[in-house]
């Protein structure tokens, strides 16, 4: 278990290099198809994400970006296709099991536990790494106490990484919006995932908050060396951060490539602005 509990690489000059094509894929999505009744939410979606890569998915509203996330972490069950994480198919598994395999995510409209403190929210990120059951928890002395202290230390590292120190004891629901978004990122990385799904991490933020969040995302990528998939409408952020970008429209991928390639692609421009008649 490296990640948050392990040795932390120095921040400055970590010098992220784009992972080369030779690197084996961590996540392979093949021919994914998802229907709600007669509506095709996803159709023939194929892409892969490598370790250490920041992969962005863009597209107009309703293009199926969040549906991809919901398929990967088991909230939706796709009718067609496979999602392989290090060779293990995820399409038949439930969300809790997929979390245990190393996939974590944040939600577009926040998925925090509002009545719990910042520390407790982060500790819940450690849930799948802990073992204390009902009986051991009630007894406290022994495993429960040992685990609480051990994982509290890991949580403290996340607090430090994301600068959440002033909020430790505050209930998550009472925090400012930008801090809530940051806390959710914190909960996701406290899970020590191999793959992190970020659903619109800067939605509704002002410029300053967005830049803070971008800095935190880069921090996380450089220090923890995990693969990330980013769904975001803020194009400037996507083009600055992403190693590769997939553009989608009406549930179908249009193109995959580097930010420069995708930005210049006529089909992407058409999808956003509408094609000239």
């Amino acid at each position, binding site marked *: 278990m490296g990640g948050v509990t392990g040795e932390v690489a120095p921040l400055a000059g970590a010098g992220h290099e784009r992972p080369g094509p030779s690197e084996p894929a961590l996540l392979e999505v093949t021919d994914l198809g998802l229907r709600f009744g007669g509506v095709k939410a996803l159709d023939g979606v194929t892409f892969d994400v490598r370790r250490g890569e920041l992969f962005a998915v863009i597209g107009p509203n309703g293009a199926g970006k969040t549906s991809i996330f919901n398929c990967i972490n088991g*909230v939706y069950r796709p009718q067609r296709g496979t999602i392989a994480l290090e060779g293990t198919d995820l399409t038949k598994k439930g969300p*809790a099991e997929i979390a245990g395999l190393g996939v974590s*995510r944040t939600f577009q409209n926040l998925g925090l536990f509002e009545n719990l403190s910042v520390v407790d929210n982060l500790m819940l990120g450690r849930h799948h790494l802990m073992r204390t059951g009902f009986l051991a928890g*009630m007894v*406290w002395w022994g495993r429960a106490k040992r685990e609480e*202290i051990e994982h509290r230390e890991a949580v403290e590292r996340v607090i430090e990484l994301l600068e959440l120190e002033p909020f430790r004891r505050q209930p998550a629901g009472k925090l400012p919006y930008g801090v809530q978004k940051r806390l959710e990122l914190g909960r996701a990385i406290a899970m020590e995932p191999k793959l992190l799904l970020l659903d619109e991490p800067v939605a509704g933020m002002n410029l300053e908050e967005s830049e803070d969040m971008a800095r935190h995302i880069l921090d996380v990528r450089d220090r923890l060396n995990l693969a990330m998939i980013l769904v975001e409408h803020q194009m400037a952020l996507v083009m600055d951060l992403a190693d590769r970008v997939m553009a989608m429209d009406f549930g179908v991928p249009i193109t995959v490539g580097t930010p420069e390639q995708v930005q210049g692609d006529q089909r992407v421009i058409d999808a956003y602005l509408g094609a000239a008649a």
Partner: protein
Amino acid sequence: MSSRRAPRVHGLMTRGYADDLRLFGSGKAKLGLLALVLAYLMLPFFLTSDFWLSVLDYAGIAAIGALGLNLLTGYTGQVSLGHAFFIGLGAYAAAQLGGPDALNLPLPLWLLGAAVFGALVGALIGPFALRLRGNYLAIVTLGLIFLGEHLFRNLKDVTGGNSGTNVDTTATLGGLDFKDLALLGENFSFNQGYFWLIWGLVGLVALLVKNLVRTRPGRALQAVRDRDVAAEVVGVQLGRYKVGAFAVSSGLAALAGALLGSYQQFVSPDEFSLFLSIQYIAIIIVGGVGTVFGSIVGALVLGGLPGLIDKYSASIPGVSTGSGDSGFISVFSLNQAIFGLLIVLFLVFEPRGLAAVWLRVKAYFKAWPFSY
């Protein structure tokens, strides 16, 4: 951490995570705990009134049941109207396990046996009931009440049917007979002995529940309550934790029931009606949903209420105390009305209950005499 402990600069300072996780960490909290323990130990020496002792004994039993319901409803967010059913189960289980005519098990075993029995029944019913949420779950658990009443009335060999059954349990622990306690050369009444037994168990159960909710399983329960989709995504198996909460809650209800039966020495099916369930819901709402402290405070305030109303009914105008007596409301209806009224008033004015009021008071005095 170095072997020499750093001096504490002020009462709220912590030195490391173990310190931070202490339940009674600060000096004030330790003093409060000491005061409570002393009150618990000394009270029967000064309080001899059977009436007031019985009020406290009933309140203690209610506190144990309320801790169970609060775990399920307050911490896990699953509203149950079936709590009375499990309390009944525990009472009848105690009758079967504890008496000299029955299995004649010693005190710890019949108490534990009743709790485990309740938990097992809860674990069996849970997977079916907990597929539903919110109001639907409330309706299904309401069904449990009627199922239970039917069983209690008709399984005559076990429950004694409509006329009820005696619960003649032993109550001895390490040479101390709580029914007839002789201690330090003094003899204590049944009510005094049961005060020690019941409130000792309240302390134990409160500690167990508090530990549960501050560790991994308890956090998972609260995550299920706050946002179940997000809970699943961080790896909490919803079904497992909901059923677990239901089982522990039912086990505590059965424990309260076993104590109730043993204390009254008699139970009948009429006691385990919907009204009892609603009484427990009132206790946790008035005390504070999702708090251990609130369950006990709520039980102290409301658990003794039926007894108080009964005693003073003659002096409350408009209450009829018997047939032929003038008055527009019976003692039983007055009870129901008061519980209903308290639920409504607290939901409107202080949804977080007396526990929240206490927290406000405490926060005010934390920096006293400065206002912030």
